[in-house]
């Protein structure tokens, strides 16, 4: 008996892995994955630093903006360079000195602003030394080329924007340069903004890319505020105090009960399940549809009777379900292997942390990948049982689509609730849907980031396995009558009657009275 199930399954697998659709499905996911991991990096690498010019009639604003830009770049350099495989700028001993000597500074951003003179320095003698160091770093920074800056850190303003001198040029010549794409934008400051309300102008051919505009505006606003305080004789320290922002450190309560700061990786970990739910849904849906269309094809190709003369309907059904399961496992298994491979290999190829998105937590926390595979198998088996029964009573895909429409509606629930459940993985809705077997696989996958108790895993999985069992038994009863039917498909009530008819899985010598082979006999 088992040999024949295996034979059917093997044929089913072979037939499906030979189709083009299978290979497209198999390859598309790794391609998208690698693209998602590498493209952001590649894009920003190829994106040129945007050149801009500034006509500054105020006489001070652009200089103040540059100083502030330097201060924030300095904070980045103090923070990042030399760590995590980031390169160290050649011959810049001052930076090393600054970092080693002032390692005790509590906030590198504050320290950078104080040592560059953006913020007033507290009366600490050591800061004079820091300011000297910062000054010589500034000289290096002023002549820093975008390419070099990008190699150091993409976030440096010098890596993103490049100022071209424009002091003597009129707006007409700048308009020409804009027209020739020599510059990306220019900013014209006509009046001193500290004393006037007249707006300055920002001119560009591309107004959708507003990185430059925002960056300049941010620094200019801060500079103008300082300037206005100064003009009204506000004490600089008071000014800093008044302008202090509301500081919010985002952190997540960890298992040990201590709050940890939230990194990019934590956010990724929070949202990775949503990606997996989508993949899971896609694969369960496509693979079980494959089963449906194969069953109908076998029926419309008049193969059922030939097969049933060699094997029992139960063997045929189980063989088909398992064969398509093998096809699906081949596909998602390949995806998972590609994912693991990409996580390990890509950082080696693009050495130096050039991978835009870091998925390495998937390896250290295997519950994501394990959930994905287990819920794929269980979810598929549940839907396979239902769809193989539907397929067995239909003669065309169209009939099947009508019959399966309630099922598709149920399937839409986890897809539509993907984001809300991801935000609140232990909310009432998420918990309730975890105990509803048709949505269990998706919702439990969705909740993976939300530290679910083991007993919840146990109960939901038990419920799911039980429904897989009952669905398969019911499907077998429908299947063995349905496959020989040729007429109009029965309605749900008729099928329920078949399911409740007192026949075993291995047919005995009785047929339910409702059975009909639809006039196929002659």
């Amino acid at each position, binding site marked *: 008996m088992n*040999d*024949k199930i295996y*034979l*059917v399954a093997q*044929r089913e697998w072979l*037939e499906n892995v*030979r*189709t083009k659709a299978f290979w497209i499905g198999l390859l598309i996911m790794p391609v998208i994955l690698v693209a998602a991991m590498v493209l952001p990096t590649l894009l920003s690498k190829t994106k040129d630093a945007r050149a801009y010019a500034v006509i500054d009639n105020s006489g001070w604003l652009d200089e103040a903006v540059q100083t502030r830009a330097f201060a924030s770049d300095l904070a980045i350099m103090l923070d990042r360079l030399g760590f995590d495989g980031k390169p160290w700028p050649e011959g810049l001993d001052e930076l090393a000195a600054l970092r080693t000597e002032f390692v005790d500074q509590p906030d590198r951003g504050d320290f950078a602003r104080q040592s560059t003179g953006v913020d007033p320095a507290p009366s600490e003698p050591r800061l004079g030394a820091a300011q000297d160091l910062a000054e010589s770093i500034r000289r290096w920074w002023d002549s820093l080329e975008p390419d070099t800056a990008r190699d150091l850190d993409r976030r440096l303003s010098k890596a993103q924007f490049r100022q071209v001198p424009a002091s003597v040029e009129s707006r007409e010549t700048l308009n020409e340069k804009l027209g020739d794409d020599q510059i990306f934008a220019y900013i014209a400051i006509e009046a001193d903004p500290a004393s006037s309300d007249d707006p300055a102008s920002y001119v560009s051919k591309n107004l959708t890319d507003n990185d430059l505009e925002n960056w300049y505006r941010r620094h200019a606003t801060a500079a103008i505020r300082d300037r206005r305080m100064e003009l009204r004789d506000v004490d600089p320290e008071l000014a800093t105090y008044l302008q202090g922002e509301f500081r919010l450190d985002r952190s997540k309560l960890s298992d040990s009960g201590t709050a940890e700061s939230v990194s990019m990786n934590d956010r990724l970990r929070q949202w990775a399940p949503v990606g997996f739910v989508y993949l899971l849904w896609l694969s369960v849906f496509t693979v079980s549809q494959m089963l449906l269309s194969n069953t109908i094809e076998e029926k419309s*190709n*008049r*193969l059922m*009777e*030939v*097969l*049933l*003369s*060699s*094997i*029992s309907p139960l063997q045929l059904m189980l063989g088909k379900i398992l064969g398509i399961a093998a096809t699906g496992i081949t596909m998602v298994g390949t995806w998972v292997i590609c994912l693991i491979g990409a996580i390990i290999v890509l950082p080696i190829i693009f050495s130096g942390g050039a991978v835009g998105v870091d998925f390495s937590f998937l390896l250290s926390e295997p519950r994501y990948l394990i959930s994905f595979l287990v819920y794929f198998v269980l979810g598929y088996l549940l839907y396979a049982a239902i769809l193989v029964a539907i397929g067995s009573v239909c003669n065309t895909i169209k009939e099947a689509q009508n019959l399966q429409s309630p099922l598709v509606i149920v399937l839409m629930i986890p897809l539509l609730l993907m984001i809300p459940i991801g935000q609140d993985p232990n909310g009432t809705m998420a918990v309730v849907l975890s105990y509803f077997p048709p949505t269990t696989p998706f919702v439990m996958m969705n909740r993976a980031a939300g530290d679910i108790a083991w007993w919840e895993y146990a109960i939901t999985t038990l419920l799911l396995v039980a429904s897989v069992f009952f669905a398969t038994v019911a499907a077998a009863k429908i299947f063995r009558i349905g496959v*020989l039917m040729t007429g109009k498909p029965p309605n749900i009530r008729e099928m329920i009657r078949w399911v409740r008819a007192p026949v075993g899985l*291995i*047919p*005995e*010598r*009785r*047929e339910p*009275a*409702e*059975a*009909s*082979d639809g*006039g*196929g*006999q*002659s």
Partner: protein
Amino acid sequence: MQPAIEIAGVTKRFGKNVAVNALDLSIPAGEIYGFLGPNGAGKTTTIRMIMSILYPDEGDLHVLGHRDTEAVKDRLGYLPEEKGLYKKMTAGEILVYFGRLKGLPRGEAKRRAKDLLERYGLGDRHDVRCEALSKGMGQKVQILGTIIHEPELVILDEPFSGLDPVNIELMRDLILDLKRRGMTVIFSTHIMQQAEQLCDRIFLINRGQKVLDGTLEEIKGGFESGIHLDYDGNGARIREIDGIDRINDSGKQAELYLDPETDPQAVLRALTERVTIRRFDVRAPSLHEIFVQSVGGQVDE
């Protein structure tokens, strides 16, 4: 010798419709057995019960001596009326698959598939996908799939339907070949001529009831002889002759059944005056005549 199939009092209902009613039938081994009957008579239902695709509501059914027909599935070969192939599989692959489903080991199935395709002129189609085969070739592959495991009993449901004369010839040879190799062959057909040429015994069923069964000679012996006539001329004029009870006129050939008191010689004289006779003989009725006589007027269509 044990009969291949023993059916006793088998009834099969579909809802209110009785498809097969209290059927008794014994099919001896090693012979060619024809299942005849109009559409909807119960031929396919009977065959499906023999193949344990359907199960009788009442009665007893033994196939190759077993009541549990699942146990003998590997010893049966079945070509259903509606036959198909997996379009994407090659002829060779599909034969191997059918063979293995019947329990052949892989290597043996491969060897036999190759042999069979060679023997029936499809050697060069071994690696051709079924969707690329012509209809006749497809049917050949199907029947080879039915016999690849050398079954003891082969059941062919309407094997001749949709075949051209060349392929009908091939199918007939194949059936005779199976008999020579000791298999029991059951086939159903509408075409009486084929049944007459091939069958050792026939079984005629109508509206779920057995009408006739037995050897061709036995059955024909139970019917009156008739005049078989080949002629040229106007067939309507034959009908003018007195003393003729029924006539099956096919235009160039006719079967005449006379009133009991009519002398065939008188009819011959009357015929020569009306049409040109090319052949005239008095012999047992054709199966077609028996079919029409037995079933006539009560076919469901």
